[in-house]
């Protein structure tokens, strides 16, 4: 930093006048280093002071305070680092949730209609009711339920005529109307125990299909 004499001189006239005056030049050149140092320091004082950061250089007797200050600053640094890490973690987690929420659902069988479930012992009949809905604005005629023969996983079959529907046909099914249909399943006396399945379809209601599951139990299990 400039000494007092230098400061006093610069307060009265620019520090470089001596150096740039032709008469004084030779004498002043010997002090050019001082001029350079003072010029640079004055510029720093004018343009950099208070720009940012903290000032002060603890030395000597303040060494302990300096060490403490150093520790505090390192602690702050680590705290900031930890804060940044957590902020990054939260950002990443939020991003992950966002990405997952935009992923398409895994392809697989769409949940189908609930099966019509029946249970009976050989030589008896089981019944259940299902409903046919007409969600359109027009009446639907010739609504006739039917199904293929019931089969077990062992290949045993019950004849198609073992299953009957009541009513056999609904004609017409009114607009936005519903109709309950009873399904009756007669189990032959010699039917083997097990689970038999088929599908109920309904004429003129192409979107409807209903799994039909008949459980034939032994008489002792009933």
């Amino acid at each position: 930093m400039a000494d007092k004499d230098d400061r006093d001189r610069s307060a009265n006239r620019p520090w470089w006048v001596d150096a740039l005056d032709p008469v004084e030049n030779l004498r002043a050149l010997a002090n050019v280093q001082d001029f350079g140092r003072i010029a640079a320091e004055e510029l720093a004082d004018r343009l950099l002071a208070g720009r940012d950061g903290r000032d002060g250089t603890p030395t000597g007797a303040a060494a302990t305070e300096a060490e403490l200050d150093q520790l505090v600053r390192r602690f702050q640094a680590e705290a900031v680092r930890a804060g940044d890490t957590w902020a990054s973690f939260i950002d990443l987690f939020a991003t992950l949730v966002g990405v997952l929420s935009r992923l398409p659902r895994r392809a697989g069988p769409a949940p189908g209609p609930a099966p019509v479930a029946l249970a009976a012992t050989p030589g008896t009949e089981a019944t259940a009711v299902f409903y046919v809905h007409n969600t359109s604005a027009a009446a639907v005629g010739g609504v006739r339920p039917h199904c293929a023969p019931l089969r077990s996983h062992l290949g045993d079959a019950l004849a198609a005529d073992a299953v009957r529907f009541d009513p056999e046909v609904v004609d017409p099914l009114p607009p936005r109307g519903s109709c309950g249909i009873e399904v009756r399943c007669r189990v032959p006396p010699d039917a083997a125990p097990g689970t038999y399945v088929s599908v109920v379809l309904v004429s003129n209601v192409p979107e409807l299909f209903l799994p039909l599951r008949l459980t034939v139990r032994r008489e002792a299990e009933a």
Partner: protein
Amino acid sequence: MSGAPEAAAGPDELLAGYRRRASEEIERRLPHGEPREWLYEPLADYPRRTGKGLRAALCLAACAAHGGPEDDALAAAAAIELAHSAFLVHDDIQDGSDWRRGHPTLHRRVGLPLAVNAGDALAVLSLEVLRADTGRLGRRLGLQVLSEFSSAMWQTLEGQAVELGWRRDGVTNLSPGDYLELILRKTCWYTTIAPLRIGALIGSWGNADLQALSRFGLFLGAAFQITDDVLNLTGGQAAYGKEIRGDLREGKRTLMVIHLLSVAEPPHRDAVVALLRGPEAERTDDRLDWLADLLERYGSIAFAREFARGVADAAAAAFPAAFGTAARPEQAEVIRQLIGYVVERTR
């Protein structure tokens, strides 16, 4: 990889070590692809030419002195060097220079339009390198570094505008104070102040004393630039790498020219002003010989040399405050050695 280079090594060897590490990092970051011939090859030209490595050295050493691994600041050092290359490409075009680091300037090699474009690309690349590093530094520190970087770039652009404006408008009534303020903006911010501040921020994780570093950086950068101006007059082209007397041909208002205008007898002064304000074509080799002779006879070159030594003294005086509170001040020894180097160097 970290730790201070060997203490016994001289400044040239120390700088070479830092330069090599920064060069490897830059090479890793250079983009490839098409159009290779028209963009990616010209873009890589200046970063691959051997510079002094001063910016990288200051950035990495400041990081180490403030407690961080030097590798943490490698990307920032690479970004600063890339921005430096971007400035050099455009600076050579603005000055109409023919030589840079011992080879033809980029616009002489590939043509003006492609060189302008490559300079733009280098500026964008420097920002990309910093942005990519933000994830590793954390959002807060990453933004601090980006802010420091952009602030320094603005200072540089403002300083460059002032210098170009002086030349376009024939401004000659300048004092050494005007010159110092010019080089604070044009050179010091991105050559010394920003590398020190950014390295210290990374090393201390955002807690360094930046003001003391800025003060030291200003003095170191000013001593560096004044010496650079002197070398432009007195150095050998092979070692200096640029055109000797290129500054005079371009009509730059260096500290030596400002000194000459202040001390010369009126006839000489008027002739120098006319030469500086005239078109560059009038600054022929004969006229430049005459001008260089005047600078020698009036003591302007000696004045600048001594002035630079005085500024270096200010840097030495500011050094303890700049690194006294750093976590590992012994790692700043490399930087202290550079104070003498910047004024005594020959290239």
